[in-house]
């Protein structure tokens, strides 16, 4: 029942979704997300439907065969067929029992909620099937949260396998399932829709429109699939799959339920584990146009880290200044913030911008993902949820930082016991001369009341970069004894004339020099990647040369590379932490070699 493994690479990725290229990586002939065709299904192009399946149930347990529709396995000479025995499976509600038999197969692994609980073979580190099939998907979707848990378990255990959840996908939820980590779908729901004369469209099932002679035949159903898969692949490439998944989910209450539960689960995990990115550059866009987008792990991660962990620059711990956000990012380039700046006659107050859905964006973090990239619809009003989030975050960061005073120019009423709060808006607009005058007066009062010293711009920049480093890397010790040079917005960080890093707001990251690596190593600043001892490191980082990792790697992270316990270089993570060390394709791009 074994066979040749599927050759696959990753063309693009976002969180748990990937576009796998199948076959010869120089000339792939198909991609995922894609469709597994059944024997009675219409012929679809290989580019959309890379596999076909056949089931033999003449005896129990049945066998399932999956065939490649192209030459996807090295040396790419013929199509391949993998066959597995289904096993005898109990439904999810009886998973406390291990009665039955588990599936048998090498390249096609069939799993169920029951086998995820009881099959010890699944713990085998060397198990790397080409395709994993979740056979009780139709039952799992009916039990709240089980599908999410099952997919997450399979996805992270078998990062390079393609996952198929038979019987539940359609053009109306393929983006959502892809968002959760599913790669393969089938036409079963479309077949059912066709049978009853309903069109399963990308926006959900609906009656056909007779005025334009619409059809519900399988050709029409497949056209919807093609649209949906193309849109999903395009969204992964441009990093907007979340929006598409949210949009699709509204066609079904169950889909909304799955998205919410998935968000909830991801929020409880670390950033790397939940697939978050740390650095995407300023060309990426995060469109938060729906209420649901607030539940995304990315947003919740920001709330958590700003509220509970972020520490302001060391010279800005006495006075918190709350400012309203602007449509332009970074805020400092907007006209409104340039006007505010004229009223802020000190570098010694901690400027924090009040916004939605991120809640608060400290000035020193305004360039980084996602603060420098988000976009929201602006109505001029805050809703109750936004106000609750903002107040809660202000309360947490204030109590933790022990600000003595808050100058509130945000327009949102803030009250925190034990902290002196000065409202400079008093119901006026943020940019009117009276409120700006109030702001200026309160800043001057704070300078006097707290004896805030004047600070050199270079030191101010260094402290801001230290604060930024603490937020991004959890540590700023590598910045000790350094100086900041250069013309804004690009800064060069040096130590005794040796360049350690550069800060460029366009890439929104510290670009570390080779000289900095031993310092970063000394202070344990970055996540670590350990290469196999017998490997000669020439190219990038792949599962074939990575032995293990240490730390919570987010996509875009700079990581230190070790071999035989020696630091040998650095790389930038293409893949988030959950894909390391066994994920498909390039995990990291080599940066420096020592």
């Amino acid at each position, binding site marked *: 029942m074994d066979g040749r493994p599927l050759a696959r690479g990753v063309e693009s990725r976002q969180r748990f979704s990937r576009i796998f290229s199948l076959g010869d990586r120089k000339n792939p002939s198909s991609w995922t997300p894609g469709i597994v065709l*059944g024997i*009675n299904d219409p012929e679809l192009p290989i580019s959309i439907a890379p596999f076909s*399946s056949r*089931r033999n*149930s003449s*005896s*129990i*347990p*049945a066998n*399932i065969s999956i065939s490649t529709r192209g030459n996807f396995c090295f040396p790419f000479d013929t199509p391949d067929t993998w066959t597995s025995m*289904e096993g*005898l*499976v*109990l*439904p*999810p*509600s*009886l998973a*406390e*029992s*291990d*009665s*039955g*038999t588990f599936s048998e197969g090498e390249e096609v692994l*069939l799993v*169920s*909620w029951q086998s995820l*609980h*009881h*099959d*010890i073979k699944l*713990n085998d580190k060397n198990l790397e099937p080409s395709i994993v099939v979740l*056979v*009780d*998907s*139709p*039952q799992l979707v*009916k*039990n709240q949260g089980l599908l999410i*848990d099952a997919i997450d*378990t399979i996805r992270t*255990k078998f990062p390079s396998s393609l996952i198929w959840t*038979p*019987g539940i996908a*359609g053009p*109306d*939820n393929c983006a*959502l399932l892809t968002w959760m980590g599913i790669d393969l779908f089938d036409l*079963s*729901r479309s*077949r*059912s829709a066709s*049978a*009853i004369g309903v069109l399963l469209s990308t926006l*959900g*099932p*609906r009656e056909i429109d007779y005025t334009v002679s619409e059809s519900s035949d399988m050709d029409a159903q497949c056209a919807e699939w093609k649209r949906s898969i193309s849109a999903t692949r395009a969204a992964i490439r441009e990093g907007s799959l979340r929006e598409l998944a949210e949009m699709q989910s509204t066609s*079904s209450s*169950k*889909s909304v339920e799955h998205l919410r539960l998935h968000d909830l689960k991801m929020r409880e995990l670390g950033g790397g584990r939940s697939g978050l990115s740390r650095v995407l550059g300023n060309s990426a866009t995060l469109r938060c146009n729906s209420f649901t987008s607030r539940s995304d792990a990315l947003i919740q991660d920001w709330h958590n880290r700003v509220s509970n962990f972020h520490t302001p620059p060391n010279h800005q711990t006495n006075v918190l200044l709350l400012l309203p956000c602007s449509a332009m990012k970074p805020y400092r380039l907007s006209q409104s913030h340039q006007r505010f700046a004229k009223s802020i006659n000190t570098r010694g107050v901690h400027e924090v911008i009040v916004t939605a859905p991120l809640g608060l964006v400290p000035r020193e973090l305004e360039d980084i993902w996602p603060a420098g990239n988000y976009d929201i619809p602006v109505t001029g009003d805050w809703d109750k949820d936004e106000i609750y989030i903002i107040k809660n975050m202000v309360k947490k960061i204030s109590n933790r930082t022990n600000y003595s005073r808050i100058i509130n120019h945000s327009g949102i009423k803030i009250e925190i016991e034990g902290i002196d709060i000065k409202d400079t808006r008093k119901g006026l607009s943020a940019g009117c001369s009276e409120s700006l005058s109030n702001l200026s007066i309160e800043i001057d009062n704070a300078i006097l009341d707290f004896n805030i010293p004047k600070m050199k711009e270079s030191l101010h920049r260094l402290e801001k970069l230290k604060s930024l480093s603490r937020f991004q890397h959890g540590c700023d010790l590598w910045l000790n004894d350094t100086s900041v040079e250069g013309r804004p917005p690009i800064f060069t960080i040096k130590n005794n004339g040796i360049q350690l890093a550069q800060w460029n707001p366009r890439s929104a990251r510290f670009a570390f020099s080779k000289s900095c690596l031993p310092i970063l190593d000394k202070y344990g600043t970055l996540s670590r990647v350990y290469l196999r001892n017998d490997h000669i490191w020439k190219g990038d980082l792949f599962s074939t040369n990575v032995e293990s990792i240490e730390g919570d790697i987010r996509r875009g992270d700079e990581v230190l590379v070790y071999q035989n316990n020696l630091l040998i270089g650095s790389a930038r993570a293409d893949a988030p932490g959950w894909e390391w060390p066994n994920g498909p394709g390039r995990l990291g791009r080599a940066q420096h070699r020592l």
Partner: protein
Amino acid sequence: MASTSGLLGDGKKAKKIHHLIKAPENTPFSVSRRESWDADKPAVVYITPENLPDGTPCTAATVILRTKGCVWWWKSGCTFCGYFNDVRDDVTSANLFAQWEEAKRQTKDFAGCTMIKVYTSGTFFEDREIPVDFQEAILVETHERGMHLVVEAQAQLCYPDKLAWLAEKHPGCTVALGLEAYDDVVLRFHVNKGFSVKQWHKAVDLLRENNLRVKTYLIFKPPFMSEGDALNLTTKWVKQVAPHSDEVSINPMNIQRGTIVDRLFRNREFRPPWLWSLVDMIQNTHEEISKLECRTIVHPTAGGRIRGAHNCGSCDEDIVAAIERYSVSSNLDEFSDIDCECKRVWKSEIENDSMLPTILGSGVERRVSRVDTVRAP
């Protein structure tokens, strides 16, 4: 299989299916329900039209006695069997005689009945379940009155001595064996039947040796099986068991309280079969069976109801009636005029089950709006 230690395992020792089957029997509700029964009253008595072994139409009395239940249940039990709800642990011979008298009272001493089915929620001639004096009294009385008797038994309890005794007391009576599936894997895993196909064959041979008639029960759609697989397999099994049986009775799964199937049903992990599947099975076995001296009976208990075999709700009554008529007439014309829009939904479900590796089936709600049947699950 090993103890719980898979990717999601919590290290606790896994249970066997046997434990899950037995669990509801011991609930306070179940115990109090069992103790509430009047041991002098039978569970059910009713009269139905039937056919005698020679095909002559007749009237049959069915008497379901309240007994101690089935020895297999005492040890383990079948996944779908809810008879434990209807038994009492302390039923005596005197109680059974009282029940028999009550049955006679309710039927005016079986007036007009030439056939009688005496069901005991177990094996009629198993001495641990039914006192021998009562067994003998029923066998003799029904024989002396010229009534054709049908009793039920488990295959592994058909001992040579006992069958010879049975044949002596009531020659030519029918023994109904609950085979359920002509497949050892299904018997063991899906049904937890307690005997094998080989044991059933042995029992059939013994019954034949004693000139007793064989009625074989098959279950349509046991738990842990898709509709598509159930249709394909049961169609095959009917053809396989018919040559060995005088009658094959196919029982579509219905949901009995407190059973494993009930638990799955409440978790929306099991749907009783489509009535269309039963029609399809009958149509696909009719030709082959009609060449044999074997009658096919399909009686959809709770047919058309949500806990029994059902369709969309609008066509159920007509189809149940047609199936019932077929069981008496053995005429396929009973189905010639029936159709419904839901047949296409059923057909696509069967097709999906046959093609996809969805072992437990891909069935969806049948009684929601047309568009909602295909809404994203």
